């Protein structure tokens, strides 16, 4: 499998490590009201789509950037690759 890195171009998937659902970027605030319930959901609940899935990959044997890869779980087609830090900034995160 080839992952088209937004900075480095097409790279072998062997250089990457799979981490999981991209929803993990949105870590809830542990000090907020009802944090226990939101952390339960954050830790244990995942969608399991048959189709497009946004997931985190880590370019461990490369530039060590985190990527958000949109992969079709039925065909393994990769339709979009973004830097996770860009995705986080679009979600309003400062870093």
């Amino acid at each position, binding site marked *: 499998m080839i992952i088209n890195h937004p*900075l*480095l*171009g*097409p*790279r*072998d998937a*062997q*250089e990457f490590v799979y981490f999981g659902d991209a929803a993990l970027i949105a870590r809830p605030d542990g000090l907020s009201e009802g944090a226990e319930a939101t952390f339960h959901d954050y830790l244990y609940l995942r969608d399991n789509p048959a189709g497009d899935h946004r997931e985190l990959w880590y370019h461990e*044997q*490369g*530039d*060590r*950037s985190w990527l958000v890869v949109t992969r079709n779980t039925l065909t393994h087609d990769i339709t979009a690759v973004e*830097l996770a*830090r860009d995705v986080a900034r679009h979600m309003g995160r400062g*870093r």
Partner: protein
Amino acid sequence: MPEHRLKPLTPLGHAAPETVTIGPLTITEVVTTALASLASRRGRAADVAAVAAAQGIPLPGPGRVAAGPTYTAFWLGPDQWMVEAPFASHEDIAAILRPAFADAASITEQTDAWARFDLAAADLPALFERLCGFDLRASPTDAATRTVIEHLGCYLVRRTDTALTIYGPRSSAQSLHHTLTTAARSVY
């Protein structure tokens, strides 16, 4: 000061660096480079660029290497570079760079973490398509990247069409050298 009688050894464990020639390929162990990593602190990219320009340190874009008169740098990751300088004049490279960048960047001494092998041959891609997943044939002549060679995270830095440098973990220098020579014997 006590007198030290310690003998410096090269990454391959000898008194002098080793050169191997296999057909048209030369593999040279290089010990004359000082290394430091340069990482811009958050929000300080513009300051780092200004200081680097004043110091004559090139800061190439993703996946590239650029050479200056004293310093050569290659890209490691977003806002991070590895800086090379001659060991003879810049043995303490981190201490030389740190005052210039002050609190705009984090600088880490890297010299003895890496073993450097310079490879020169007319057809290097033929060797590297056996060694790693990085497509050397399709890459530009100023490409520099990290990739896996024999399960080791290595930096691959192109110098010219026919010459490149591999930086591998120094503690695995002999394994890396063995891999390079074994692959070279099957190619050339």
